[in-house]
């Protein structure tokens, strides 16, 4: 039994729905897997209560689904402390990768810093010398800019933290225009990013823009429009990664739901597949065996849609992170892989994790 706690209503529900759909697609043919799903309304307290319910009343064995770091921070401890597994299909806060890591917590997506690190790496290799970086003022925002700086070899022109939920960036953009930066990196999830990219393009500032995949995902590109064309972004997945698993996923997803899959859908899908694969090797009732099975799944039959995939010692992915560019393809905006970015990338918190 799997408990799927994700955001199905209100702002940001698109992400949750994709995760759920991707997951459902992956386990569609598994009679042994039953999904109990619940809407967390993007509220941590509701998410925890759902987790309690699923564990206590529905007696689920695994919980997954959470989109947001802050909800994960609330739910993961509650789940693993009750002896259940949590598989993260999105969100990888550093605390859970480092000090507060847990043997029953697996991350199938990325550690929060990963995409930003890749972006920093890309910026350096693209020859940018001086970046203007911007993120909202909350832990994930700070992690993001730290991650970027970790791999960016140039200097930082300016580092700006905006209000969470801010939607007007005229002042920040004016500041960018007036600066000497040669590139702009931004991490502004959701509507904030849409607003930023649109306004950035409307202001006709002539600087290259780099961001993490979140602001260029399939669901969001539609809303951003042509403003996003040509922007480079980093992602561990793209629909044009060439491997059998991915092609099948993209095809199945389109035929099942009538839309292009997103990053989140792929993560949900991988999460489902890894469970399926682990179940083939161990019984869920035997916690220790199942944990081993999960851990070894990448070498025992699990094939990720992203290609190479394995777990580091803190149960986070070791994977390639690509650089993509937004292009127009048959009238729709989508992403194209342009370079490999970081190879076999893990995370810096491995040492802090003592399981």
């Amino acid at each position, binding site marked *: 039994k799997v408990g799927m706690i994700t955001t199905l209503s209100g*702002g940001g529900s698109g992400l949750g729905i994709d995760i759920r759909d991707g997951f459902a697609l992956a386990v569609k043919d598994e009679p042994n897997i039953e999904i109990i799903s619940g809407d967390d309304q993007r509220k941590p307290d509701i998410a925890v209560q759902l987790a309690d319910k699923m564990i206590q009343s529905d007696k689920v064995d695994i919980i997954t689904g959470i989109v947001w770091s802050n909800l994960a921070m609330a739910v993961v401890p509650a789940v693993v402390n009750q002896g259940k597994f949590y598989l993260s299909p999105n969100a990888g806060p550093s605390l859970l990768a480092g000090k507060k890591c847990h043997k029953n917590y697996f991350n199938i997506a990325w550690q929060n810093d990963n995409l930003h690190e890749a972006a920093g790496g890309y910026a350096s290799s693209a020859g940018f010398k001086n970046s203007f970086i911007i993120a909202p003022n909350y832990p994930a925002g700070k992690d993001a800019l730290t991650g970027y700086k970790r791999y960016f070899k140039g200097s930082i022109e300016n580092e700006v933290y905006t209000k969470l939920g801010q939607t007007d960036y005229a002042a920040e953009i004016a500041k960018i225009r007036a600066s000497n930066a040669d590139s702009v990196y931004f991490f502004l999830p*959701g509507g904030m990013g*849409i607003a930023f990219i649109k306004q950035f393009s*409307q202001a006709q500032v002539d600087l290259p823009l780099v961001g993490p995949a979140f602001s260029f995902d399939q669901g969001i590109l539609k809303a951003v429009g042509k403003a996003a064309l040509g922007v480079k972004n980093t992602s561990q997945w793209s629909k044009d990664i060439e491997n059998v698993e991915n092609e099948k996923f993209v095809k199945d997803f389109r035929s099942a739901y009538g839309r292009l899959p997103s990053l989140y859908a792929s993560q949900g899908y991988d999460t489902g597949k890894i469970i399926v694969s682990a179940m083939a090797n161990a019984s869920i009732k035997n916690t220790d065996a199942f944990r081993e099975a999960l851990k070894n799944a990448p070498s025992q039959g699990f094939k990720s849609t992203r290609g190479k995939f394995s777990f580091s010692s803190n149960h986070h992915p070791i994977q390639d992170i690509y650089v993509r560019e937004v292009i127009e393809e048959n009238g729709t905006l989508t992403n194209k892989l342009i370079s490999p970015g970081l190879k076999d990338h893990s995370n810096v918190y491995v040492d802090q994790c003592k399981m």
Partner: protein
Amino acid sequence: MSLQLFIEQLLNGIQFGFMLFLMSAGLTLIFGVMGLINLAHGSFFMIGAFSASFVAGLTGNFFLAILASLILPALIGIMVEFSVIRKLYERDHLDQVLATFALILIFSEATRYIFGAFPLFLDIPNLLQGNILLPGEIVYSKYRLIIIIIGLFIALGLYFLINRTLLGIQIKAGQNDRQMIRVLGINISRLYTIVFAMGAALAGLAGALIGAIQSVEVGMGEPVLILAFVVIVIGGIGSIKGALIGALLIGVLDTMARLFLPIFFELIMETSQALSLGSSLASMSAYVLMALVLIFRPTGLFGKK
């Protein structure tokens, strides 16, 4: 920082202020003048943006889209007023809170049901793309200039409507003593319907105009709602002039705080802490301003006792 940039940022602040005013214009009418606590104001903002986006997608014409953003919210406003709000004027303010809270749920979910969970696309027309050069080498967005102009017009219009027309007087009278104004032969319910629809239309217009430079998504209205309340309260409930000045104050303060607080704190503490503290404080600036105003003027800047 150069003087030029400073002036540009000041303009940005003023521009942001006009945007805030645009968002709160509808609320000023419904809340400030009719005295109805309408939490669903943000929903009309959202509905405006969605209908504009839908029509723009269909016709490719931005001006038709704007028209839609006026008409659809107004129609829905009339429906809502008729079926729900109308029964609540005589009740406690609090019932209005609960009912309009429920309306938020209904509208958000219905919108999501119809348009899906992902943000929609709405962009400004080519005609208004790009910048113009203001005297002093200041680059300024055409579209934002238009927003300022529209904001000014709405301010003037509302001022005239409320202070210079019979309709305005009658609505104010109805706010003071509803029963009495009816006994004097005025169908206040109909007036309220009209005004409510106008308020909804203004909210919708704001949603469309601002949606074009932000993201059109479910739930986009709620932050607007709170800010709009803040603007109106700072200015003093019922005062259009107050709302405009309140909006400009917040706009400029917020922009300046965002720019200068981090810089200021960098002078006295370590950079990363300074950035974070500075922007934390900047996030609060609107609320700090409101608290300060209310401490010294418990009925807002231009509110009557």
